């Protein structure tokens, strides 16, 4: 189960990754391989981009700016409150592949977040039926599931699919939760003040929710746990991320391009933090924004000023 929790590929920006990390993980598919891409910002050929390939979109989904400027691809990312800006230039002049591929894949990624993100109170249910995602199949529907998030509890229904578990309140369709297997940290049966309950812990990156469900009788509860566990295993082995992208023109079959790399058994831990990412800071030498405060001067929230600075002074210097 820990295997899934180490999923970082779509969540993080990493630099100087090892060849092992560069390999596509299960379920991750190499869509396009672009040669002669110049990393305009970084100069010293980092591992992350030095291979000049885009293996997957490593932009933090929370905030990414995709914008083509002449021949360059800017990717603004934010990871752990640090913004990185990548500028990739396709050296093949006039080739739109960089943009089409990356932007299209990014779009496919953005529009398929339901596969990967835990969702609360979303528009999941329509006419008491789960709105299915492409390639999603409902394996089981369990009635009479109590959500133990409130004192009195809410009676609702479980939908167990090959991608996620969905619960919704029978009384209020908008009260629901969708938990992809990808975001499940643990599933177990635990005692609660309501008696034995199925407890699903979501991963930290999804918010670390602890969701309790009560199914009566206990046998039914056990069955549900078993089913969810096995489906989770299946999913872990062969995850569905939901990004389906078909190249309109495939340059070459993947097999021909793939070079088998002998896996490095030994991973050398870098002694010190490498500095590769400094080149990619979106805002100069700043790693994190300062906190927001309300400015009476503007009547708006602003980033807290450094000591000795005034808004007026800062603006006048600029103006």
């Amino acid at each position: 189960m820990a295997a899934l929790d180490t999923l970082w590929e779509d969540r993080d920006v990493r630099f100087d990754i090892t060849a092992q990390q560069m390999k596509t993980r299960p379920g991750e598919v190499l869509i396009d391989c672009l040669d002669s891409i110049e990393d305009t910002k970084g100069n010293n050929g980092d591992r992350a981009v030095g291979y000049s390939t885009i293996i997957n979109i490593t932009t933090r989904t929370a905030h990414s700016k995709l914008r083509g400027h002449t021949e360059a691809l800017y990717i603004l990312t934010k990871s752990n409150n640090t913004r990185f800006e990548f500028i990739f230039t396709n050296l093949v002049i006039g080739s739109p592949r960089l943009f089409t591929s990356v932007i299209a894949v990014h779009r496919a990624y953005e529009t398929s977040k339901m596969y990967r993100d835990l969702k609360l109170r979303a528009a999941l249910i329509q006419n008491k039926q789960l709105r299915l995602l492409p390639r999603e199949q409902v394996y089981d529907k369990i009635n009479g599931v109590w959500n133990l998030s409130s004192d009195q509890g809410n009676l609702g229904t479980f939908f167990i699919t090959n991608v996620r578990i969905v619960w919704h309140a029978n009384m209020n369709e908008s009260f629901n939760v969708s938990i992809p297997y990808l975001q499940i940290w643990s599933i177990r049966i635990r005692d609660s003040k309501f008696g034995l309950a199925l407890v699903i812990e979501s991963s930290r990156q999804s918010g670390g929710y602890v969701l309790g469900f009560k199914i009566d009788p206990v046998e039914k509860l056990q069955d549900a746990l078993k089913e969810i566990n096995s489906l989770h295993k299946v999913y872990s082995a062969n995850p569905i991320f939901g990004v389906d992208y078909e190249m309109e023109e495939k340059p070459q079959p993947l097999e021909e391009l793939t070079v088998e790399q002998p896996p490095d058994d030994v991973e050398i831990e870098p002694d010190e933090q490498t500095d590769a990412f400094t080149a990619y800071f979106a805002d100069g030498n700043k790693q994190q924004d300062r906190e927001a405060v309300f400015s009476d001067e503007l009547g708006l929230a602003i980033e807290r000023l450094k000591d000795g600075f005034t808004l007026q002074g800062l603006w006048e210097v600029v103006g």
Partner: protein
Amino acid sequence: MSLFKARDWWSGALGEGEEFDQGCLCVGDVDNSGTGHDKIVVGSYMGMLRIFCPNANKQSEGGSADAQLLEVQLQNAIIQVEVGKFVSCSELLHLAVLHPRKLSVYSVTGTAGNVEHGDQYQLKLIYEHNLQRTACNMTYGTFGGATGHHSLCIQSMDGMLMFFEQDSYSFGRFLPGFLLPGPLAYNSRTDSFLTVSSARQLESYKYETLAVATEAETRQDSDLTPKTGGKRLTPDWTFVLGEQALDISVPSFSHSSSSILVLGERNLFCLRDNGQIRFMKKLEFNPSCFLPYASVKDGTTNLLLGNHNNMLLVYQDVTLQWAAQLPFVPVAVRVANFPELKGAVVSLSSDGHLLSSYMGTDPSFFSTPKVDAREADYEQVDAEMKKLQKLIREATRTQDILPKSDALEDLSVKAIVFPSLDASSQALIQDMDGLPVPSVTVQVKVKASSVLQSAKLSICVQPPLAVTQDQFVLEPMGVGSTKEVSFSAFLNGHYPPADLTGDIVVSYSSPTELNPKGVPRVLQSRFNLPLALVCVPSSPAKSTKFKITVDTNQPPVDLSALFREFSAKTEDKDGNSLAFQFLSGAKVTVLASKTSQRYRIQGDSFEDMWLVVKELVQRFDQHFSKLGIKDFKKSFSGPIPLQEYFLSVDNHFQLRVNAQQYQDLLSERAVQFRAIQRRLLTRFKDKTPAPLQSLDTLLDATYNQVITLAEAAEENRALLEQAFVRLRSSTHLLVLLLSLWQGLTHDQTAILEATLLPLLQDTPQLGWEESCDAAVSHLLRSCLSRSPKDQATSLAQIGGSVLSLPQDTTRLKKHIALLCDRLGKGGRLTLASEANVQIPAQIQNLAAPGGVEPIAEDLGDGEEVENPQEMTKFIKKKPSRKVKKEKDSKEKKDVSREPSEASVKEEAGVPEEPIKEVKKEKKESSKDKKESKKDSSKEAKEPKDEAKKKESSSSKEKKEKKEKEKEGKESGDRKVSRKSSVKVKDKKKETEAAEG
């Protein structure tokens, strides 16, 4: 690019390819939580209604799931969402959702759970109105001064304002002069509605006026036939904007700052409630949305303005107060208060990026930050650079690809001509006129000093001489290996050859490191065949047509001693006469004068004497150098036998003309032949046979003519070949005589030879006459010209007409005669133009017959001095040193002669100089004026010549290169005269010969 950026506090990407616009965003405490904190309500054109409560802390940990309070899929597209008190008897806020044909008012209620994800929210429909007309936008407010609740006004796409008071429809009114809907706003202060009409003016309608205006059930009625029950609707006031508006806003922060704000496409307008303009701000960008949000300073309005350059601008009235860059173009912007943050800017993009941000205060300069720890390893880079440079250098090094230098030859070729003739002749023609044709064996030794590949040896002798084998393919040779090949040479024609020398050419390739296939190289060598190959001794003839007399400064020598192999048959025992009979029949007699130091060569044909004269001169040189006499001199007193020479020229020319005629005739006959053939063919093809009309006879006759002509042409060709050889013989003789006559140096002779014998073969396209004429006239125009002016013009006229067979030989003859004349007057043959500029003036003074070098050299200019010599080197195909060596060793006497000759000349020249000076003075006095004039003109010329020099410098580059090399050898001694340089060179040769 902006300096500041909007810092995202919370953000979300909404939906999958949904679309959003201006009215789709609103903020408010829609769930009536009582905290006063705003929720963000977003509706999409795809009908999704979402409510968010942003929460920054959670997001930093990665989870944003619980920020979404509600997500509902509605049936219809959502045009606008507004939060207000839309339900009567309720102070609670409700949500009004405008669909194209429906207005729905919902209540949003939340039920708190134990944990955040336990909070549940419910959307409950309170009431809805189905609309008769398609809605465009709406506004709400306390219409008519009502308190406690908000009424709604919807503008339809066709210009009807529909008023709803909670769950009841009040009335509808058509706007006058409507074309397209504009933005709509309600001004509570004046209880009026504001819109921008298609007339591009801001119009204000009082609610009162609207209420009492004509009831408009149909649009047409309202315009055409106003009912008596109501007044015609007119605006309270209008203000011409001159452009379409994006949005209208009527903020009411305080009474002192009451104003109406209109965002146009290019300008921002601010008006008072009565329609008077307060200010107008011209915008330098395309705005996308705006929002007056506060009145920070009394009497002013703060507003946010988004534009299509991704910028969010903060204005206080007309003053720009702040700017921040957004990651997208905002279509709607709001200011909201959240539990953790007051005054957050909420912006929405058309593709569903919802951003709650605050203004960044760190300026960002767009410079790539320095990467400190990642410095380039300069040593490594340096090493790589060096390595690459070394590679480049090696690749471009010419020494390896091209032959390194001729210091060390890969190969030595030595030809040995057997002293005696072959016992059994190898000749193809065994005898000519009863005389047996002999052959002589030549052995070629090839010695390799390095590895050789695919070596080929070819032998070339002058026609009509022939060899038994002229091509030899040699096996690959190792270092130090030797190969020997031998062949026999003999005469293979009924006329004597022009030259008895033969050439050996070895082509091979020597592999180098970079070029394993080998660099192709060629080596030449030369051998001399004996005179005995082409003639036999005979009895002297007394009376002959042509006579040539050669003077010497030494007592006569015994001819029989000089020509031992020919002396056997001679009857003259005192060695005064010797006769040679060529195998072709001509007889040449050499007579030595008993009293004077003269020798006479006489024969029946001019050209046949050449070989004998050449042999004689050679043997004289050998003889006297053997005797150790250094100042041996031979000369020809003239006149030059030009008439005799011209005979062979004319002969050759006539044959060429004949050849041309034959050619023409042949083609004419061939045309005729084909024409007859064609006619015959049509006859034969014809289905009804017609009589041939003697066409067959004609065909036969023409055929015979063609054959006869071809035979004649072939015969003529053979004759022409022979004539050319004869012409060459006589030209050689002429050159020899000219050089003897004027005492020309070796180099000058070489120029002369190159001029008069430009071709080794002549073809119908390019023959001897025209090429020789071109060369001679060039010499006449350049170095032999009378005035420097001619010289200059001649150089300008490089590249004349195409050479072709001349009409006759008169011109050529005239030119050759002129050449001889000029040479006789002291003209110096050289190709270096600048050296000759001075000549004409000096010629007149210094021209003295007798072959004394007439020109006093300008000793200051070493380059000038050396030029002629270098030129000839350049002109004459310089044989490789090996060849030279061999030649030198073979003609050892010949070599040793040269310095002696030179020194003789020098010695003779020195004492003569004072005399010359005297002469010069005398002559100068006689034509003093003329001279001075010439001098001045000459001086004037000099700069020009300098320029010329530069012009021709490219062509002389090679020369100069050589000179530089030479200069290096002579250790910069630039004042060496030509003589001494010759000496130096000859000495060098000697040393080389000694080494060899």
